[in-house]
């Protein structure tokens, strides 16, 4: 059951990315390249609408004791603004600005982006594995 609803959520998420054209890295770069003389602020409308819808629904849904097909809510609890948060956001922002792809659009465009997207995604997986297998064990050893 939980996989079915997750698949539906992913599907609707992907349709949202498609309608808003955020699956197109050229459109995202046209937003990030603010000073190009041909700035396209569409991404702001996407994020603005998404945040407003989520904020309203979040207040209603989290009044429940539990979600519908899982035993409990598993939501982020961290609230500290620390070096990993800032450092990670800086690195991610740099990668985003280089190609115009962030994870949501990158996965959803997988069927349409051809070889360039596959190359990009292979590098994303290597980056994630470097975090899981190199960075995290190193941090654990340093704090042990």
């Amino acid at each position, binding site marked *: 059951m939980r996989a079915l609803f997750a698949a539906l959520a992913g599907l609707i998420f*992907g349709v949202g990315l498609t309608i808003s054209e955020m699956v197109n890295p050229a459109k995202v770069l046209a937003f990030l390249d603010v000073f190009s003389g041909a700035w396209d602020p*569409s991404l702001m409308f996407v994020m603005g609408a998404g945040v407003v819808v989520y904020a309203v629904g979040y207040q209603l849904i989290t009044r429940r004791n539990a979600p519908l097909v899982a035993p409990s809510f598993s939501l982020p609890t961290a609230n500290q603004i620390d070096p990993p948060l800032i450092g990670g956001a800086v690195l991610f922002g740099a990668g985003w600005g280089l190609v115009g792809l962030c994870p949501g659009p990158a996965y959803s465009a997988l069927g349409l982006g051809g070889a360039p997207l596959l190359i990009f995604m292979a590098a994303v997986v290597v980056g994630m594995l470097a975090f899981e297998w190199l960075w995290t064990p190193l941090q654990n050893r340093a704090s042990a």
Partner: protein
Amino acid sequence: MDWNDLTPIAAALGGALIGAASLMLLLFNGRTAGVSGIAGGVLRFNLRDLDWRLAFLGGLIIAPVGWGLLRGGMPVVEITGSIGLLIAGGLLVGFGTRLGSGCTSGHGICGMGRISLRSAVAVLTFLVVGVATATLVRLGGLS
């Protein structure tokens, strides 16, 4: 500004759908719809926690192609940039989103929707760095 390329209604509609999809994952699965977090969890290879993650990513991948088939024309995915740029960008996005615990969906939509200061700081940071990088890439003639 290029008014011909601005598509505010389609953008807001798409954004609202992204918000609604994220709410669905919250209501049914009790999870945050952060794409980098969902994908990152797959790489921990915890079999009991794998099904919904792969299902979400599967839906995400099918959507643009399905939409294209229904509408009789595939969505445009235009990727500029050399192989070097693609590899560097991918490594930075993969590592950075895991280190910073989120991306445009997890911090951007869900985190800001929860009114999390931590997420707002992350979003501001990656937006400023993203704008700076995209500008430098154009000025440097890399794109």
